[in-house]
Every structure is written in structure tokens, then in C-alpha cells.
């Protein structure tokens, strides 16, 4: 059984994956029950929050899988990229569990983790494929030739797609998380009402900051009453522009490298328009789109574990290693 821990950003998460690839537990700290149990309304953006949650989350995962640490034979943990202090909480916990039981440990790259969510069943995808990985912090096009081998084809040059959703929602006076709020409101609107620009950048890169500014200019010219009546159309048109940018670059890249299979991972992969437009694409199940530890456990199956002598000095990394 693999025990995996993920603490790279806001979520404290733990998961258990058994030898047959069955997900036995997947606990994420923002889940409603945990939120209620630990009383976090506006979570502090700090690793102290991870420190408070890591043990309860690990306990909840073991409970959910109805198992104990005795059944764990491999520990996996996110090593980066992310906020160093946050990553170190997960790494320290993973080292402590692994060392005390003399278990091997696998450090996992967070971005490889998002891709590896596709190896879980469903959709149980096998390489090679082209992966669009879009979240709040990252927007990447990756050629996946083998389970743990990613080649970077393109990236955002300014804002990530998930950030574009979030800040768009703020400009429109919609709630948080912005992606879900825009997705909901867009369903009542006309996506052709506004012609927002789709940035054309070189290679397979993306740019979303011009789009955000275009929305700002539209909103700035409206009275509160006008904004209220146009909000759904603005949300639909704005979402459509983001999705179009993602889809156009993905299809262009697929054609260029001759990819037979396209896949979508990361939080923006939960967007309903994106999911419906990319026909035939392999999709991560909704609950595994945003940060979680199940994807880290999945990735660990394809990486070389470190033995106890090799991981005590393991450190976190802040920036993306993929280049």
C-alpha cells in the first residue's frame, strides 16, 4: 500500500493506494467535513495551517481506508514546486513515517502528480499522449511519452488559466472559487455576446493577462445595474475566450507532434465547457482535478524509491524543474 502526502499549496492532503491501483482513501483538507471539524473558515495562507492539519488528515485517510501504517510499504510526498514552508511540512511528515518504519520514500513532482491522476482508473490512461495541465498556478502543454517522462511544449507567459478564471470572477463580482462561479453563471449567458481577444503567442505558449484586462475595460464602462444585467453574458464570453485559447493551442500542438490522444489535468480541467469541447480527450475525474494526494500516490508507482539512507537530507524545491 502506498501512503502519499501533498502539501505544496493550500491543501493538506493524504491518500492510500493499494497494490492493485485501487484508491482506498483520498482526504483533502478543504473537504466540507474536515472544514467543519477543524473550524477553518478563512484559512491562513501559511505552512502552520498544514502543520495543524497534517496529522488529522493522515488519521482520516487511514480511517477511510480502514487500515493502519503497518500495511504501508511505500511513502510518497510532493517535493515541489510550491511554497517551501508548506512543502517542508509534508516532507517532514513523510520522512518521519518512512524512517521510523524503515520504508522507502518517493519524492514526487507536483506537476507530474497532476498528470499521473490520469493513470488512476478511471480513465486509466496509458502514454503516449499530449496533456493540457491547467490550474490556478500553472498552464502547461506536456508531451507524455512514458509514465514519468514529461516534455514541456508550452507554458503561460503571464497568468495561469485558473488565475484568469479567478480574477475574472472578482471583476464580475462573482464568488470564490472563481472557476466554479464563472462556470455556473456562464450557463445562463450568451458566449457570443462579447468578442474577447484570444491571444496568439508564438510556439505552444499561452497568454491570459490581455484577456483579463479586456474584461476589466468592459466592466469599467458599466453601471452596477448594467453589470447585473450583463453579468451572465460577460461570464459566458470570458469563459469561452479562455477555453478557446486552451483548446486551440492544444489541438495545434497535438497536430504538430502527431499525438493520437489528448488529456486534460489540473483544476481548470473541471470546467464544464472545456470538458465538453475537447471531444475524445481523457479527463481526470472532477474530484481529482484540484490538488490531492491520490495523484501523488499514482505517480509514485512509476518512480524510483529512495532508501532510508538516501532521503533524510531530502529538500523541497520552489520552482518548476521542467524546462
Amino acid at each position, binding site marked *: 500500500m502506498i501512503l502519499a502526502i501533498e502539501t505544496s499549496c493550500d491543501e493538506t492532503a493524504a491518500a492510500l493506494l493499494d497494490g492493485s491501483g485501487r484508491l482506498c482513501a483520498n482526504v483533502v483538507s478543504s473537504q466540507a467535513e474536515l472544514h467543519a471539524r477543524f473550524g477553518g473558515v478563512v484559512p491562513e495562507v501559511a505552512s502552520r495551517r498544514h502543520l495543524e492539519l497534517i496529522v488529522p488528515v493522515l488519521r482520516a485517510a487511514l480511517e477511510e481506508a480502514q487500515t493502519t501504517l503497518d500495511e504501508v510499504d511505500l511513502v510518497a510526498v510532493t517535493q515541489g514546486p510550491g511554497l517551501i514552508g508548506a512543502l517542508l511540512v509534508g516532507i517532514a511528515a513523510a520522512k518521519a513515517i518512512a524512517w521510523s518504519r524503515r520504508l522507502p520514500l518517493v519524492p514526487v513532482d507536483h506537476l507530474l502528480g497532476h498528470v499521473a491522476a490520469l493513470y488512476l482508473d478511471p480513465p486509466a490512461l496509458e502514454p503516449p499522449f499530449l496533456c493540457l495541465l491547467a490550474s490556478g498556478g500553472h498552464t502547461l502543454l506536456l508531451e507524455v511519452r512514458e509514465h514519468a517522462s514529461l516534455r514541456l511544449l508550452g507554458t503561460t507567459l503571464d*497568468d495561469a488559466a485558473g488565475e484568469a478564471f*479567478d480574477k475574472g470572477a472578482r471583476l464580475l463580482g462573482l464568488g470564490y472559487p472563481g472557476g466554479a462561479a464563472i462556470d455556473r453563471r456562464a450557463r445562463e449567458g450568451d458566449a457570443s455576446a462579447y468578442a474577447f481577444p484570444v491571444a496568439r503567442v508564438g510556439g505552444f505558449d499561452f497568454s491570459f*493577462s490581455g484577456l*483579463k*484586462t479586456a474584461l476589466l475595460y468592459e466592466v469599467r464602462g458599466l453601471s452596477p445595474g448594467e453589470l447585473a444585467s450583463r453579468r451572465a453574458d460577460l461570464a459566458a464570453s470570458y469563459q469561452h475566450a479562455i477555453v478557446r485559447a486552451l483548446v486551440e493551442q492544444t489541438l495545434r500542438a497535438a497536430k504538430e507532434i502527431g499525438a493520437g490522444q489528448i488529456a486534460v489535468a489540473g483544476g481548470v480541467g473541471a470546467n464544464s465547457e472545456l470538458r465538453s469541447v475537447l471531444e475524445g480527450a481523457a479527463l481526470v475525474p472532477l474530484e481529482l482535478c484540484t490538488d490531492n494526494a491520490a495523484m501523488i500516490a499514482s505517480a509514485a508507482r512509476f518512480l524510483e524509491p529512495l532508501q532510508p539512507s538516501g532521503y533524510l537530507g531530502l529538500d523541497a524545491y520552489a520552482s518548476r524543474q521542467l524546462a
Partner: protein
Amino acid sequence: MVFASLSAEETEQLASTFAAALEPGDVVTVAGELGAGKTTFVRGACRALGVEGPVTSPTFTIGHRYQGRVTVSHLDLYRYQGVSAAEWGDLEPYFPDAVVFVEWPEAGAGMLPSPRARVSIEHDDGTRRRITIENSDAILLDQLTRAHTRP
């Protein structure tokens, strides 16, 4: 000192001239509303410091670190309500031996080290931006005034 920029390219250019004299240990705060061009400004500054890859918004990731001629830290406090002692503990490692840019610095009031310069970017008419740079020494603005003063 107040400057005008008519495009993202001009903002990058201005930032690049401004940043040429920055040194590790310098902190620059970059304030302004959504879409004002804060990340654009930091990108231009990073180019002058020898950073070549994408310089992207750290809103969700909170901190980026780039290696140029010097180490550059790029922080974003957009998602902070304030900065508690515990939160400062996460931000502090980005400061030593680096040129540090902080977007949305308001939440860090009282916690951030005192900046060598404060940049604030405002939307003006159309696509025009007003860029105000306040600093504590003359060296930074000297070059800038010569290169970017408009009639």
C-alpha cells in the same frame, strides 16, 4: 516621480531601465489594481537583471524565484488578508540575497522590510497607465528620468 505608459511594452521598458541599478537585498513593492500591469512591470525589471525565462503571476503560487545575474524573488500577497508571524515565516526565506519584488504589498504592511522603492500603477484613460515610483535614494531614478521623461 510619475511616468506614463501607453502599452505593456512601454511598461516593461520603463521597468527595465529602473531595475538596472537594483542589487541583492533590495525590496521593491509593486501596487495597483487588477490588470494594472504589476506582473508586466516585474517582467521588465527581471529582464534587466538577466532573467530569461517566463516571468509569470505568482498569485496562486505566492512566490517565484528566478536566477538571472542575481537571484530574483517575485512574491504576490493577493490572497493574504494580512501577514501574521506564521505567514511571514513562509515569506522570509525569499528575502535574503535576492532582489525582491512584492505585488499586492498592502497585506504585508508592518511585516515587509522597508522597500528601496515603491511602485504604484494606476489605470488612466484607455490603455494608458500612470506609473509612480517613490524611492529613498536618487540613483534609481536618475537613469529613468533621462530615458523616459515625456514632454
